[in-house]
């Protein structure tokens, strides 16, 4: 038998027949789909095919969605017991599980992320968030947040394009469990799974107006943020927009939670389990094309293992399968939009012009769509822009350190504080480092793990508040001791 040249996997495409995409969508207001007035296209970033026309909500639609949410809050949702609210959430969780495949395919088509990730991560976690929060609805008095907490009322929720359905679930599930009603706006480029979720609300017979979904761009988001009928704003997105929102609501009584950017350090000590650390580096920054606010985008290597780790990392990166997101064997899909691709390309050029040594895994890209190869920059220091700015793409900056304290100092030398990674086999050093790092989520000997029971959120400019777990509930309740 001759040595084979290669074990190339034949295409293994997921069928898209399971989803029906309408040519045009409206808004979901007061339990019904309402036709939009203006529309904009949503495309598949892997093919540039126009998938559908999405409605652009203006003042009239936002007004009526907020009015519907207020009415539902007053007339039904706030009168319902926690037990009954919880049952609706359980229903939603179950329907999402039943329609998981449909959600996964739609998410991949609209977002460009690999079907393996939408199928194995986004959709199951989204359902899990509803299941988890369903159980809180009738137990809020035991959450340790005080005895006189109340829902805010109407929550305006604005979510990003990187995990469209998952971010929806992070927002909607706790809001409903704590007794709020919501007006949610999905990201401009990824509205489809939110609109499918609206159908789930109908199937679950959720009272009209409890969940309202308006689609649109930043102007729609601004209408929600500035609307006097909103009691609480929950936003996930860039730090830049987060600050705009913080300023906009400053003179008001609106409560705000923000889940913003990051520039996480992933720190590899010389005693780490190297093969798993390599996996952690890859998963840390190439998961979801690097479109992850908590991505481990700054690799901090102890100097005595730099050569070994980089050599292994490049071998491993060359095995990342980049291409058709609908192929079940794809590891890295399409960049979500042309705009984002340009930003990644631009920052990579900055990295080169500042003297970083660039290495990209060899890839054959499809003819159409938006693509960027897994890339590392070596020779990067804290003084490089690519070590400071969030790139939000599959680009890793490699820095080095000599002592544990130096690693901590470099890791913390950023206005962000969302997440960090530690790789070491030494228990006492791990606990020391996890205390030193100024970040809301510390992954030790793992990375990019999420769970509804586990609070997520950042220090410093990475945001306000936590999502998930017992701690996340306080974001949707007032009377927790401060204003």
């Amino acid at each position: 038998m001759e040595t084979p040249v290669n074990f190339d996997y034949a295409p293994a495409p997921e069928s898209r027949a399971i989803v029906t995409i309408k040519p045009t969508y409206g808004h979901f207001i007061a339990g019904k789909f309402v036709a939009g007035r203006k529309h904009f296209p949503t495309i598949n970033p892997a093919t540039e095919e126009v998938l559908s026309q999405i409605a652009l909500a203006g003042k009239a639609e936002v007004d009526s969605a907020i009015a519907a949410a207020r009415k539902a809050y007053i007339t039904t949702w706030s009168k319902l017991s926690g037990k009954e609210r919880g049952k609706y959430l359980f229903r939603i969780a179950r329907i999402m599980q039943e329609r998981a495949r449909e959600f996964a395919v739609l998410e991949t088509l609209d977002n460009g992320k690999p079907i393996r990730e939408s199928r194995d991560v986004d959709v199951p976690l989204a359902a899990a968030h509803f299941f988890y929060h369903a159980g809180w609805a009738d137990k809020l008095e035991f959450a340790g947040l005080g005895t006189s907490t109340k829902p805010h009322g109407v929550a305006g929720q604005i979510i990003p394009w990187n995990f469209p359905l998952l971010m929806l679930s992070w927002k909607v599930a706790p809001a409903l469990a704590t007794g709020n009603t919501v007006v949610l706006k999905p990201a401009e480029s990824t509205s489809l799974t939110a609109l499918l979720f609206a159908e789930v609300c109908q199937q679950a017979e959720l009272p009209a107006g409890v969940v309202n979904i308006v689609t649109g761009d930043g102007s729609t988001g601004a209408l929600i943020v500035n609307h006097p009928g909103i009691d609480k704003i929950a936003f996930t997105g860039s730090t830049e927009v987060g600050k705009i929102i913080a300023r906009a609501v400053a003179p008001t009584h609106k409560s705000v939670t923000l889940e913003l950017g990051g520039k996480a350090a992933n720190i590899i000590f010389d005693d780490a389990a190297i093969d798993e650390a390599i996996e952690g580096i890859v998963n840390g920054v190439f998961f979801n094309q690097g479109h992850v606010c908590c991505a481990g985008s700054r690799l901090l290597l102890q100097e005595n293992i730099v050569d070994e780790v980089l050599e292994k990392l490049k071998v491993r990166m060359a095995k990342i399968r980049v291409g058709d997101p609908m192929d079940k064997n794809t590891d890295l899909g399409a960049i979500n939009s042309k705009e984002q691709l340009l930003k990644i390309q631009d920052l990579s050029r900055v990295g080169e012009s500042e003297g970083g040594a660039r290495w990209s895994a060899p890839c054959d890209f499809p003819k159409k769509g938006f693509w960027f190869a897994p890339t590392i920059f070596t020779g990067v220091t804290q003084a490089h822009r690519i070590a400071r700015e969030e790139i939000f793409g599959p680009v890793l900056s490699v820095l080095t350190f000599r002592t544990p304290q130096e690693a901590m100092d470099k890791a913390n030398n950023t206005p962000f504080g969302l997440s960090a990674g530690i790789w070491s086999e030494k228990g006492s050093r791990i606990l020391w480092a996890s205390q030193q790092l100024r970040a809301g989520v510390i992954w030790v000997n793992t990375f990019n793990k999420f769970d509804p029971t586990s609070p997520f959120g950042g220090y410093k400019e990475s945001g306000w508040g936590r999502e998930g777990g017992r701690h996340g509930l306080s974001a949707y309740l007032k009377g927790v001791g401060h204003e």
Partner: protein
Amino acid sequence: MSNRIDVKKTYKLFINGAFPRSESGRTYEIKNANGVFIANLCLASRKDLKDAVVAARAAQSRWNKASAYNKGQVIYRIAEMLESRRAQFVDEITVFTGTTKIKAQKEVTDCVDRLVWYAGWTDKLSSLTGALNPVAGPYYNFTLPESMGVIAAIAPETPSLLGLIDAIAPIIVGGNTVVVLASTKAPLSAMSFAEVLATSDVPVGVINILTGKKDEIAPWMASHMDIDGFDISGLDAQSHGAIRIAGAENLKRIFRFKSADPGRILAFLENKTVWHPIGL
């Protein structure tokens, strides 16, 4: 009536464990309730604030690392020192604010008791507000409260001493350091309290007290990029909007409080979640 001339106290700022004058050289007059001049107080400048923040930042890491037991003892020691000077504080409050002696006694008693109450919180926080999160996978996952960093505070005008203590104590309980602006009209007992702090075991820089004007200092506190959180309980509501806008530049955590409540401590703590695999 003795012919002896009183030795009057010069009131200065309290920064990094020392009592400097304002770098600006400015002062303002404090009069008692009857309009009689009592003292010239330092009118702190933005540069005094800057110095205080440097001191608070430098002290934060060490204060944070002190054990919860130690932090509790340090705060309890403040209560001890205040208790031992009860008579002085009752006199000062009575003279300076024109209140009755009974009311002044009650305020000082409340101050001591409040400090004792806060002292006991240091080693309870993580067990009451932390969590072991049952994630769906082979991971040990826990969430613990952790200090936020340097916190600024504007103490309310009244009650001037209790308000100051309610501003300071919940901030330092969890390992933060503080820069606080005392009551503008009645800052004297605040600066006497600084003497209490100086003779207790509080490490230098952990608590820094300024005197001066709110509308002058508060905007600089709000915009200072090395301040992580801001207690604006002592500010008038109409200024909150502008303060919050200025604070958005580094997404400062800005809160106001209505009572001494554990929520007041937790507001200036971050929650950190740590994941680790469980395996052989």
